[in-house]
């Protein structure tokens, strides 16, 4: 799984589960030198594309929580929707740990579990959506 896939899965997963998991890792000695470089809220401007003329325009801004950490020689980063700074920090720590090669197997196993759960809820929603498909007929 790529870094992009991992962050994407975690940012769409249950925040409390991620925080609990990261907390459990922090007890190990490898995280002793963890430095929080940034942990704040901010905005991202979200653009969309007009299908009439292809114009890209600003749809509006999105509130984000952002975290940047240093672990050993590696930096970790995350930005997620909302104002839960701990959620952003928890994922940034996992990002740094994966880059540093710490607890890789355990983290990937956790991400996989989250991905299965996310895929499952997406599939359920899409199945419910499919049940609303219509065939229009004119008389």
């Amino acid at each position, binding site marked *: 799984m790529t870094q*992009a896939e991992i962050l994407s899965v975690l940012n769409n997963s249950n925040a409390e589960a991620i925080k609990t998991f990261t907390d459990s890792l922090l007890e190990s000695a490898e995280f002793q030198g963890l430095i929080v470089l940034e942990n704040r809220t901010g905005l991202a401007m979200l653009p969309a594309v007009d299908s009439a003329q292809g114009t890209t*325009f600003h749809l509006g801004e*999105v509130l984000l929580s952002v975290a940047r950490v240093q672990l050993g020689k590696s930096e970790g980063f995350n*930005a997620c929707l909302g104002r839960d700074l701990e959620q952003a920090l928890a994922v940034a720590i996992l990002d740094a740990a994966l880059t540093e090669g710490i607890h890789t197997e355990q983290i990937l196993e956790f991400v996989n579990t989250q991905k299965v759960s996310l895929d499952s809820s997406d599939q359920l929603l899409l199945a419910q959506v499919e049940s609303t498909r219509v065939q229009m007929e004119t008389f």
Partner: protein
Amino acid sequence: MAYVAARGGEEAIQNSEGLYRILNGDLTRQNIRAIERHMPYLVDRVMGEGSLYAPELAALALAQTGGDLYEAVLLLRAYRSTQPRLFYALPISSETTMVVRRISAAFKDIPGGQILGPTLDYSHRVLRLEALETDSIQAPKLETKNAAPSSYPKLTDWQREVGLLAGELEPAVQTSREVAALPDITREPPIYPAPRAQRLQALARADTGGILTLGYSNMRGYGGIHPTVNEVRLAYAEVQLEHPITGAVFSAGRVRVSSAEVVTPFSSGKTPPELSLGFAACLGWNETKLIAAAMLDVAMSLQDPHPAHQEEFVLSHTEPVEASGFCIHYKLPHYVTFSSDLDRVRKAQAGGSLELELEAVGV
């Protein structure tokens, strides 16, 4: 200009806010969560007009203002102004968008098919009074088989392929650096005629009621077009950011977005005739506003639109915070200016001419 000082106002102001809270009930986390969970369309409207996607804060704004929409939008805009813009996300792409509703009133058979999605459009509009007599009415369980596709081709792509739509599309914006260079009405006010990017941004954050009013006036006959809904979409879109260390593009999470296209023949005045397309999109799910906005997009592009459908008129008068702010400023003391009006009326009553008095002050 003269100003008015108020004495003894501090206690009265505190008590007036206290009374407001007493009449509207306690502000509790439980109430805020309930608004966020059970009134998503209201929350969407506040986020769309507030131009900030933050469901929790939009629900708080609604709870804090007792549901006064203009006050809630103002609170969200005010909060937004305290936050730094840290990123420019990549443009929403149809590949990473999960569509849950997609209908066309123009074509019954569209590539990918029609999906009604979550809607009350085809339901009886009757109050479910039994809900007042029972603890709860549970949402039904749907019988499902296959999953719908997550994304669908654009109807406009097919229309261009078969020659129904002409005109080159603008080059795609692909990087956050390019996004940062786009026109932005929060940084530079529009100068009319506005760049299309500013027009669409203004429509995205416009007042739903205002857009509906002007759009409806167009529909009723004051406009020169009779459009048809080409496509309406409700979807979840990934907010895609570039990782500042590695450059990897990842999702920060999903937001609810909606878009509408309307199509109309013969408005371009070109020969041979071709279809004209109007477009609007916004944060949150707000179909009614977007259909009206897409119609206004076409109307504003006509050669000589009705005065109420001119770009400057539409965009200036549907800005919710400016419009509501200007309106409520009239509640503030105007004793001095009104006193001067009264003086002139009294002079006229004493034998002068009101017209001459008004003329003297240039009215």
